[in-house]
């Protein structure tokens, strides 16, 4: 994926979430504004047959994985045109056929599941890998340590990506996690690990590619920590606890502006081309919203379908 495509993917996510939040029926959401580069950089190195599992902060990774924005919007709004027929929502968004095995809204809950998917891949589809994206909040949970241990023992083709935005809801990382660097957690298990600037999409892509290829060729699990910034509060149900001054400083680190400005400065993106890109994205999101609005809600009888 070249840098223009990376930029387009990030713009799409930003515009999608903005369009969602303009609606009064947006529901309970965890947004990725500020963290687009992690999802986009990671997904740019995954192949068609690879699978991605995520935390409940799933909108960016789902779109970056190539899910149709209209279908994702439909799922978030509870419409049957969503890949989970509106039953999963953001917390459990999934489209297996698109390589998006899906979100799971229990912090650290998808880690051992992803290792199991990787075990199936190892036995049935050699050469493919499974990526699991989780927040720094998951790093204090036993599930991560149990998963690192078994994945290392069994050399599972598993790319673990920690999107470290520095906060578990309001609790800063310094109060929640002892390790100096979260990628240090992989060391004792002999798992190759790196920490990169998660606001630099090219850096995320390059590191993810290097680690993914090692895992793909039999090195076992790999661990990538991306240092990112969350521009919104933890979720639509939680108030912002950071100061206005802090937020202003954080927003200056926008991964989209950073890439676009760099491209422009290097002459790789003219002002008119940038405008055109933004216009394309605007039209795609408008179409997605129209698609989702036109889709039906489930019949109440679906409350008991696909249970047993």
């Amino acid at each position, binding site marked *: 994926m070249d840098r223009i495509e990376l930029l387009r993917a990030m713009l799409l996510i930003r515009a999608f979430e903005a369009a969602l939040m303009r609606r009064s029926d947006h529901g309970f959401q965890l947004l990725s504004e500020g963290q687009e580069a992690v999802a986009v950089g990671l997904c740019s190195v995954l192949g068609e047959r690879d699978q991605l599992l995520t935390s409940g902060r799933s909108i960016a990774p789902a779109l970056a994985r190539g899910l149709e924005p209209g279908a994702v919007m439909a799922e978030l709004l509870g419409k049957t045109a969503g890949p989970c027929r509106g*039953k999963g929502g953001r917390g459990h968004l999934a489209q297996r056929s698109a390589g998006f095995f899906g979100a799971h809204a229990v912090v650290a*809950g998808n880690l*051992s*599941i992803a290792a*199991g*998917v990787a075990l199936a891949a190892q036995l049935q589809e050699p050469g493919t890998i499974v990526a699991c994206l989780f927040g720094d909040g998951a790093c204090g949970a036993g599930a991560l340590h149990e998963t690192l241990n078994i994945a290392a023992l069994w050399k599972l083709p598993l790319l673990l990506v920690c999107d470290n935005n520095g906060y578990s809801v309001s609790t800063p990382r310094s109060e929640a996690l002892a390790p100096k660097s979260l990628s240090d957690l992989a060391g004792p298990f002999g798992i190759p690990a790196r920490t990169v600037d998660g606001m630099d999409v090219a850096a995320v892509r390059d590191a993810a590619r290097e680690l993914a290829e090692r895992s793909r060729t039999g090195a076992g699990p790999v661990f990538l920590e991306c240092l990112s910034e969350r521009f919104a509060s933890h979720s639509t149900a939680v108030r912002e606890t950071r100061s206005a001054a802090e937020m202003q400083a954080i927003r200056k680190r926008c991964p989209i502006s950073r890439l676009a400005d760099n491209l422009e400065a290097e002459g790789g993106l003219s002002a008119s081309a940038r405008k055109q890109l933004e216009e394309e994205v605007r039209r795609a999101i408008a179409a997605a919203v129209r698609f989702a609005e036109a889709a039906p809600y489930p019949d109440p009888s679906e409350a008991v379908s*696909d249970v047993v």
Partner: protein
Amino acid sequence: MSSDARQKLFFREAIIRALREEMDRNERIIVLGQDVAEFGGSYREFEGLFERFGRARVRNTPVAESAMIGLGVGAAAAGLRALVTITYMDFLMLGLDPLVNYAAKARYKTGGQIEVPLVVKTTAGAKGQGVAHSQCIEAWLMAVPGLKVVAPATPADAYGLLKSALRERGPVVYVDHKRLFPTAGEVPNEETLIPLGEAAIRRCGSDVTIATFSFMTRIAERSAERLAAEGISCEIVDLRSLAPLDMATVCGSAGRTGALLTLEEGQLSCGVGAEVIFRARESLANLRTARIGALPAPVSSNPILEAACIPDVERVTDAVRGLLASR
């Protein structure tokens, strides 16, 4: 060999046979658990499987119940079929997140895209091992939509229910009882599956129905023998499958006898008996009911206290007499 030929097997042998047959039939089945490979399982209930199917399919795991179940769930969701063994049901609590939050909901939450054909095999019941190695928490699991629960009382049912569980679309918790492992029973030589959701009438009778399962079926049988000597005729319904429950068989029997006693080794509050009796009363007017379970206390490894806590023949026979005296 005639088609009704039978062979006496211990529980562990019935389990090995079921797994061997199903693993031969379906190469996607894998077994994950502590000490399942060369060691053959804590109750030797996996003996020979490692030698036959190899390390890729019979895998020792670290002591990490949450990740063990999570891995089994993920592998099953992605196209394998996993049996995860949890040595004691008490430790299943450590793995409830992947089982309840993921496996039981996967088909629903993905709109039918992902199914989790997983069997969690575990053991319940008191056998001198103390407060965190004795519990019977089947009723907790019965309350989870999307989860099936079976608990055999005979080697033939262990064999037939485990085979059926290994062909289900969704997650099943299969519960052995520690006190049943030293016992043997006739198992058909011919391949026989026992469908989930079908109870069995172990003993026919006319005065009272005792609905029970797992090791407590033995206590019910001994109680029925003693009561028969007093002229009281007990019918014993072995539920076998707790989710789904076969209320048709329970109600058919209780409708004939007019009295229903439930017997379980777990707790009475929100227990199996509470559910069975409530549902029976929804269908049967004027049904006399009583329930027996463990005392509302932990189960000690102290033999005196353990015996005092869990139901025995005395308590069952007293309860039946009391129930019939209320006529």
